């Protein structure tokens, strides 16, 4: 099965939505079926590489290795989950009159293009293609940020496109500087855009030019990842999109951008002879990116923004893990998977809460455990996974962060631990208020009786998967496997 089949499915499912005879239900069905076909096609296509039956391979445009296969599987898994949730979510909003057929058409047109961009970015071996794909992730989701057409949505969408596009433009500048270093080391025009060839000539590239390139790459792609202080667009954008899209933005897009940056880090480290110089960037920005959202999480008033700030915090944790070296990189992979599962489940739950209580403000949503027990219970379970309560996979990655961090950088690790404690405390306090505090007069009181729906099913599947992943990691077997997968792209 050709890689182009996968691209074809996503393009086709996007274009089909433009047909005038499509109804709301048929649009949702097309979205759902295309996501499942995409997942099956990707498993079929990269599954053998992922499990190691077929060796990794590359062409001038593409590179399929075990790590990129893992990323691809996470993207398509989350796409399928998000479309299952969307099937129910959009139907409710359509029934309430919040969305029209035009909205649904835009949604089902944009999401497959967004997924296609992420898949291309993950498997691209050509840095130019990678850049275009990453920029396309921003362009394909901008109208989803402004989806509801409110003033705040417009503000969020404007910040999103301007800041992310500027960041990615600076990333392009970094790519060109790196290409310039490559051409100085003997690569021809087109060759200077291939990551594998850049890696090959990395030791003979001018270290000064490469360091210059990395600064721009770090600031540029760091903006897309949400590193503080370039994060300002993230809480706005991730809280304004429909919940299933928020789940994909927070759950996987940030990881895709992070993976991109790490691929360049590998080239730079080879030029400089060690990862020490680049690791300092990750350590310092990691600390900042944990600390600032942790303070904000202590007094957050909106649960979707809380989840978005938590994503910023987790990007900080992942950056710090990268800065810790080889062991940290394996913990990074662990954290990435755990965060994807837990955060997306929480966003699915947040969508369910929003539809039921018609507000995202903590002060207007209470007593969820009694009034919407299914959502409440699943939301609580996902939160426990996110704040690294065992058997969460995040427990292991954060355990490595503290253990390895204390040995290498005790002061910075101390600050990170303080940040983690504040973030955990802030989130638990806010969510416990939402789940257990009695309802007040200002909020919507006549909430209909909750029945089991598709969103709950997806949340249960993700929760079971997240717990199973954590147990597998804690058993020791998972660590070994993830070490092997990480070694396919990182120097361990």
């Amino acid at each position, binding site marked *: 099965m050709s890689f182009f089949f996968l691209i074809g499915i996503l393009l086709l499912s996007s274009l089909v939505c433009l047909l005038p005879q499509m109804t709301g239900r048929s649009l949702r069905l097309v979205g759902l079926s295309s996501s499942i076909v995409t997942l099956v096609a990707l498993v079929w296509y990269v599954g053998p590489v992922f499990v190691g039956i077929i060796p990794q391979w590359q062409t001038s445009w593409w590179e399929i290795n075990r790590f990129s296969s893992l990323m691809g599987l996470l993207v398509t898994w989350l796409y399928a989950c998000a479309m299952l949730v969307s099937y129910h979510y959009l139907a409710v909003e359509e029934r309430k009159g919040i969305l029209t057929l035009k909205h649904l058409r835009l949604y089902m047109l944009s999401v497959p293009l967004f997924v296609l961009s992420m898949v291309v970015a993950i498997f691209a071996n*050509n840095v*130019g*293609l990678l*850049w*275009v794909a990453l*920029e*396309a992730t921003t*362009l394909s989701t*901008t*109208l989803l940020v*402004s989806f509801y*057409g409110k*003033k*705040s949505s*417009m*503000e*969020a*969408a*404007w*910040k999103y*496109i*301007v800041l992310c*596009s*500027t960041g990615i*433009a600076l990333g*392009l*500048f970094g790519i*060109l*500087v790196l*290409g*310039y270093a490559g*051409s*100085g080391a003997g690569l021809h*025009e*087109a060759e*200077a*855009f291939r990551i594998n060839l850049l890696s090959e000539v990395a030791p003979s590239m*001018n*270290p*000064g*030019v490469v*360091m*210059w390139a990395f600064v721009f790459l770090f600031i540029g792609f760091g903006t897309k990842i949400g590193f503080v202080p370039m994060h300002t667009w993230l*809480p*706005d954008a991730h809280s304004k999109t429909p919940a299933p899209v928020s789940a994909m933005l927070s759950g996987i897009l940030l990881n895709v951008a992070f993976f991109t940056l790490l691929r360049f880090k590998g080239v730079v480290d080879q030029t400089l002879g060690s990862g020490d110089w680049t690791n300092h960037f990750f350590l310092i920005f990691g600390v900042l990116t944990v600390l600032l959202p942790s303070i*904000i999480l202590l007094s*957050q008033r909106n649960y979707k*923004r809380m989840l978005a700030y938590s994503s910023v915090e987790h990007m900080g944790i992942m950056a710090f893990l990268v800065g810790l070296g080889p062991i940290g990189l394996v913990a990074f992979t662990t954290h990435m998977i755990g965060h994807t599962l837990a955060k997306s489940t929480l966003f699915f739950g947040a969508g369910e809460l929003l539809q039921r209580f018609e507000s995202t403000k903590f002060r207007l949503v209470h007593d969820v455990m009694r009034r919407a027990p299914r959502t409440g219970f699943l939301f609580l379970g996902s939160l426990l996974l996110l704040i690294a309560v065992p058997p969460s996979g995040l427990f292991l990655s954060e355990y490595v962060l503290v253990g390895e961090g204390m040995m290498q950088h005790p002061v910075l690790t101390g600050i990170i631990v303080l940040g983690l404690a504040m973030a955990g405390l802030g989130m638990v306090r806010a969510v416990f208020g939402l789940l257990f505090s009695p309802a007040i007069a200002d909020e919507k009181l006549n909430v209909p009786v909750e029945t089991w729906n598709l969103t709950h099913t997806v949340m249960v599947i993700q929760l079971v998967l997240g717990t199973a992943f954590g147990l597998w990691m804690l058993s020791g077997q998972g660590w070994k496997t993830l070490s092997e997968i990480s070694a396919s792209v990182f120097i361990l």
Partner: protein
Amino acid sequence: MTTSSLFTMLMLGLFLGGTLASFTFMRLPSLLRSYAFSSVALGGLALSLAVEKRAIHLIIVATVVVAVKAFLVPFVIKRMAERSGASMRLSSSLRPSASWFVGGLVFGFGVFLALQSPLLLGGETSSSMPELLPISVGVVFVGMVMMILRKDLISQMVGFLVLENGIAAFSLSALGGVPVAIEFGVYSAVLIGAILMATLSHRVQELFGIHDTSHLSELTD
């Protein structure tokens, strides 16, 4: 000095002049004209390089640059602004006279930084057009500062496009352009980005009745 190098120098001057004018002009038609002007000069630089290196693909690049940046993008922005009834008068944190000074200063800083950087240090360079390299870095800085200082959505959008022009100039200078397929992808992204930004600014104008970014301050913590 040969005709070719005279043409290159002229285009460099126009590119720089158009960029600094974009930084300074406070009326939408003038701003878009100066941006289009600098984009035509960028196309001219690509053409000059095409002749020098006998690279046919750079002629295509020059054509695409002029078509997209000098005609399509300004047309889309102007049309959206007219349709939404936006004011042609733009706003900035600086007065026009101070803008020339600040623009020059920022550009000078960018050039200085490039000259001190390993890109050019010691005169060792594999650049196809070394004189454009520091200028392109200066233009990137001008675009960034323009995005910060301008207070209306359209100017910020043009600031982004100026920044992108600087990057395109850098790619010409440092690498003699990039492969056509990638170039096509980049310009498509720029065009779609410009259309999306223009659409958003149109909607903001409809909702808020003004283009000023100071009104976009609802989302705070």
